[in-house]
């Protein structure tokens, strides 16, 4: 995983494609959130009717 991130960083640095950084960061954060929150079901407790 660390190697993949390093490769991505080097790719952005060499090719000067830093605009890719937000896309990668957002996707990583979303992925982490989805994986970590799996297997829990607290949400139905905090429902609203409308």
């Amino acid at each position, binding site marked *: 995983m660390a190697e993949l991130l390093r490769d991505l960083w080097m790719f952005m640095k060499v090719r000067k494609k830093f605009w890719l950084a937000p*896309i990668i960061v957002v996707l990583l954060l979303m992925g982490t959130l989805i994986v970590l929150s799996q297997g829990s079901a607290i*949400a139905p407790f905090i*429902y609203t009717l409308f």
Partner: protein
Amino acid sequence: MKKFLQNLGLVLVSTLLILGTLELGVRYLHRNLGKYPKKDPILHHALVPNAVLERIKDEFAVTYRINSLGLRNEEFSIEKPQDTFRVLMLGDSYTFGIGVEIEETFAKQLEKRLNAAGGPKKIEVINAGVSSYSPIIEYLFLVHKGLSYQPDLVILNYDISDVQDDYKYTQIAEFDAEGRPLKVNPIEVQYYYREIRKGIASNIPLLQKLRLHQFIMERVYQLMGKRDVPHYYEMAKVISGDIEYDRDLPMRENAGDWKQHFDSSAKYLGLIDELLKENNIAFAIATYPYAILISEQEWKIGRRLRGFDEKIYPTKLFDYLAEFCKERGIPFLNSTPDFIAAQEYPLYYAYDGHFTPAGHAIAGKAMTQFVLDKQLLAPKSSLVDKSHHVANP
């Protein structure tokens, strides 16, 4: 400086692009999520007609299809067909059938079993269960909709949470001079853990409209819940026994004397009884146990979050209900013994707490036996429950 601004602009565009793509993705994934209840000027809330709602959770994946009359039922003609005996099932989320398909609900199990038992008329059971309905709203539902379906029999499924629901709805309802409800205004009532939601959720209108924001916040709640089960347990203990916050009040050991709150709910049951008598429609009341009333093992996760330990809890609610029905000569079913005798597991979802398909099957079987034993399919004139003394005929 120009180069820096160019790069900054590129990063901003890139950020907006990925967030926009994710927003579209979430909207596509949740295209069938649909709205669940909508605000209703008379009934506080009601199902959206013709809605198709997918609910995919860890414990179940179901689709709720709402018919054109706003009920979780197949389409049916308001005008009752000849040679049809129509049963109207009132209730809340347990009757609605959270977590199960429509044909698995105890309402449809009853219909199937009664028709299989044979009889001169076709039996049609209409499922009018809506989450968080309670007798005050069920009375209004009958007045404004239910009676027009010309039911021959109304079965009201009284849920343990109805005690608190009626207490809450009474505060936002309007009444006529004789104390009969005219409407329950569609004002949000405070529910369990609402404060936590308010604490986390954004108050920025634009963010509230973004599905991506909802998607992320739901997962943040889930993360919090996963980490904080002991915290939720302690928190539930703090509010337990307080009718303002506690939906499980009738099962709390520290609840004190809460019969006054049941009496308030019973007032609406009495109004329903009178209304149905005036219209020559048979009436029965049924209730069923929550998991903690029958087993230490059932509802294993959810019970901790609601501040319950791994033991069986008692409740006086069913005694109060039985006494009320006895006084009025209303046939009454408490299916707790049927659930205790069942050899199946689980009858309830471990987290959610509603009936699994097996739980609905037990409830449907018990209700069929009850309807047959009490001869509730007989003509109305012979329907007085002869096993009970009628104090106020």
